[in-house]
């Protein structure tokens, strides 16, 4: 019998808002899906699209990226820069054939513990429905495969 599919999800979050929001969710004893591994960064401005690619390269089924609401950035405008980058990167992934549902973006503040828990739960459910990211797993599998000719 095969085990039920549990998606592996990587979250890149900024330390000032979303990570604090996650903290709040924790201290408020909110339950949320355990499928997400959080990676904390100083600011969404630091979340390079390379990180998202790296997460996929290492076998993530979904990636989520989250930071301070516009106007709330600790560094005043890191999240505005990030927003533009995501906009473009998202379009690129879509054109290349990586379903946009696999990479999600959100603003979650330090006060939004509930939103954090709900966001994690809904993303996990969405990815679970999508199933394993088989196409990418195929690419990863190719790196292990013996030469074909």
């Amino acid at each position, binding site marked *: 019998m095969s085990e039920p599919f549990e998606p592996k999800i990587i979250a890149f979050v900024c330390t000032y808002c979303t990570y604090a929001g996650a903290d709040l969710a924790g201290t408020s004893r909110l339950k949320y899906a355990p499928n997400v591994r959080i990676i904390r960064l100083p600011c969404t401005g630091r979340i390079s699209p390379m990180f998202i*690619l790296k997460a996929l390269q290492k076998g993530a089924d979904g990636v989520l990226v989250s930071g301070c609401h516009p106007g709330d950035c600790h560094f005043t405008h890191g999240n505005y820069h990030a927003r533009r980058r995501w*906009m473009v990167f998202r379009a690129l992934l879509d054109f290349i054939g990586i379903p946009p549902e696999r990479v999600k973006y959100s603003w979650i503040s330090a006060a939004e513990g509930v939103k954090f828990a709900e966001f994690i739960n809904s993303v996990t459910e969405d990815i679970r429905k999508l199933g394993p990211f088989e196409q990418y797993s195929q690419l990863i599998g190719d790196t292990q495969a013996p030469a074909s000719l």
Partner: protein
Amino acid sequence: MSIEQQYQARAKELLSGGAVKMVIGYGKGTTGNRRRPIFISSPDDVGRLVLDDSCIINLSGYLVSEGLLSDEKRVAVFLRPEGIRAINILAAESQLDADQIVIFGFDVNDNELRALKGIHVEEFADVIGSIRENNPGFADKELLEKIEKMTAQERFAFWQEEFAKCIKCYACRQACPMCYCRRCIVDSNQPQWVNTSSHSLGNFEWNIVRAFHLSGRCVECGNCDRACPVNIPLRLINHKMAVEVLGAFDHVAGMSKTQEPVLASFKKDDSETFIL
């Protein structure tokens, strides 16, 4: 006098007067319709310059060769409108001083060669502006539409087949005037962001990274497309990204030498419909 002769004469004048130290132009190639980049430093050699509708390569990338402009002397270069836009971007990204560049502008419309008037990049604002108006006529609209109609899965399969051909020769990168980094991200190994191997994952990642780094910067000169020895439709991805950037940020790359790079600037009211 043909445009070729006019430009030869102008090159001779600039070189003999010392106004420029070098003219980067086109010379005869191996076969009848091939043109190769040539570098003229002596007024006696201007006869080697060729200008016709086979002059396609965007020569602007040579301007950022290590040390070329560091003596603050001027360099002249043959450029099509895309090449002129490339100068704007290079100047906007502080890679060169646009005042050092003397432009021999030309364009080909309906197989007819015409000279573009002007010397420095800002004098070509009209020509470049018109590109913005009649969004560059991209050859393979058909293929683009076909891809856009595909499902995500089909698109993934389409690009995987194309990228599978990639041999990681980096001709696309080396031919691109916008890829001027002294050390490309794929050449960094601590950490190793992208697999250097040219297996399907490594190729896929490399092509995503390349396209992303050119988003909002590509002038669609087609150097990458022509350089690719395995015929991956690279320009198509760049074009698609240009369309996206135009739609999202009303930005066309290379409009002026003071234009802010699209991904190094922002507006507070940028669209964010996709953010939850």
